[in-house]
């Protein structure tokens, strides 16, 4: 870590401490205010209700008042970490992979709610890539026996979504899903039915790599092209990248591009609010996350341009 970054961190830590002070005062005021109101009702339920209500309001306020600090942290710390990995990469904290790109990959059902942030885009040697955090959700409405309808959102996919220039030309579509057996027994029976529509795009491709077959199910509109893309070495590389990621991954090959969705169950690249920024391992954690993401180009050997695509 450079001394310049140390300096930045100290400045941000001052910002964070001011924020914590402001938030603590807000919380105390809220609790006093609502408990006071609740006490006048002279019921224990009112007091509990008052407390819950104050925390709820506090949650909303925290998000709003922390936004300045979060934005500052992202543009200064994450931004310079991205540049330190490769100067040809740019970081846009508020932008993301578009919903259109997400849908176009054809890996998931069409989402009803789509959010994203932390876009990194640019070029690693000969390969251009873009990736961002993405959260896609499906709306479920249910009506109970009394006729009340409730709406809730169920996650379809949450994690990093990559859009990468592939090193070979191809014209058909090939998709890799986590093995279906896993999906079958998973909890999203309904989602599975909708997934059926995706599976209709092409036929199952049986590959000779046993480990790969165990982890993934491959569907393609062209058997030979699927094997042209998934050469023996590419299968090994995808497997090892998957093993490093710990979450499930989905891959689509279309229009000579590769879309890869990697499940991550935490909000990446966010600064801590209630703990210090000056902890020793903090920055290396962000750096590891970023390096793991950008390593994909090397891991999948995408800079090897020995075929007609340059």
């Amino acid at each position, binding site marked *: 870590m450079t001394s310049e970054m140390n300096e930045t961190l100290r400045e941000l830590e001052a910002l964070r401490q001011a924020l914590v002070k402001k938030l603590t005062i807000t919380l105390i005021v809220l609790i006093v205010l609502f408990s006071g109101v609740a006490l006048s009702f002279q019921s224990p339920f009112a007091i509990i209700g008052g407390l819950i209500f104050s925390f709820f309001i506090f949650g909303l306020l925290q998000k709003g008042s922390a936004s300045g600090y979060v934005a500052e942290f992202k543009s200064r710390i994450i931004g310079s970490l991205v540049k330190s990995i490769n100067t040809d990469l740019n970081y846009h904290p508020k932008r993301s992979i578009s919903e259109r790109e997400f849908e176009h990959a054809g890996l998931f059902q069409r989402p009803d709610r789509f959010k994203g942030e932390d876009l990194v885009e640019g070029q690693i040697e000969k390969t251009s890539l873009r990736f961002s955090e993405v959260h896609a959700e499906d709306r479920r409405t249910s009506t109970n026996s009394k006729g009340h309808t409730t709406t809730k959102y169920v996650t379809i996919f949450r994690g990093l979504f990559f859009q990468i220039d592939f090193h070979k030309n191809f014209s058909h579509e090939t998709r890799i899903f986590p093995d279906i057996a896993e999906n079958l027994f998973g909890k999203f029976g309904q989602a599975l039915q909708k997934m059926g529509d995706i599976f209709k795009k092409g036929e199952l491709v049986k*590959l*000779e790599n046993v480990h790969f077959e165990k982890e993934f199910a491959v569907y393609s509109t062209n*058997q030979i092209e*699927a*094997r042209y893309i998934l*050469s*023996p070495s590419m299968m090994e590389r995808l497997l090892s990248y998957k093993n490093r990621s710990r979450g499930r991954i989905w891959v689509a090959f279309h229009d000579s591009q590769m879309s890869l969705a990697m499940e991550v169950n935490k909000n990446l690249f966010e600064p801590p609010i209630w703990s210090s920024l000056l902890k020793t391992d903090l920055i290396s954690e962000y750096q590891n996350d970023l390096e793991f993401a950008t390593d994909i180009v090397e891991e999948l050997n995408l800079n090897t341009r*020995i*075929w*007609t695509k340059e």
Partner: protein
Amino acid sequence: MIYLIIPAVFIVLIILIYNGLIGKKNQVEYAFSSIDVMLKKRYDLIPNLVSTLQQMMEHEKDIFTSITELRTRAMSPSASNEERIDLNNQITRSLGSIMVAVENYPDIKSSSNFEQLQRSLNEVEEQISAARRTFNSAVTDFNNGIEMFPSSILANMMGYSRKEVLEIPQAERENPNVKDLFKS
């Protein structure tokens, strides 16, 4: 009623198995013809390669004569499937030795014309390999169909027998080493 249902189910089952076997057999034929398509692409590249390199690499004249001859024999309609596969394995080996020989001619190696040609060849080689793997997968599917019960009974009656998978030449099993390919 039950006397009607049982034979009906039985007949439907036989039809399904029969069609499944035919489908598998056609898949093998289709996969084989796909290899031919890819091999044809390579035949088209060879004259180009020979004319680009022949004059500059006079000491290697023999390789060029032999690869041209192999190509002619492989393309002749009288060649059987086995012969064609065998001739193409020889072509693969000859191409390999040409690429090794080019190492001694830095001028050729660095020319953009040759690099483009080499890229096209790499692509075709990888497509041929993909087509072979597709064929082998189809053959395995077919062999499973004719050997597993109950489809084996029907396959026997239809006179189907095991098909052989293609040996993948050693060179195709290894990952191409890029550093060797573009060493300057």
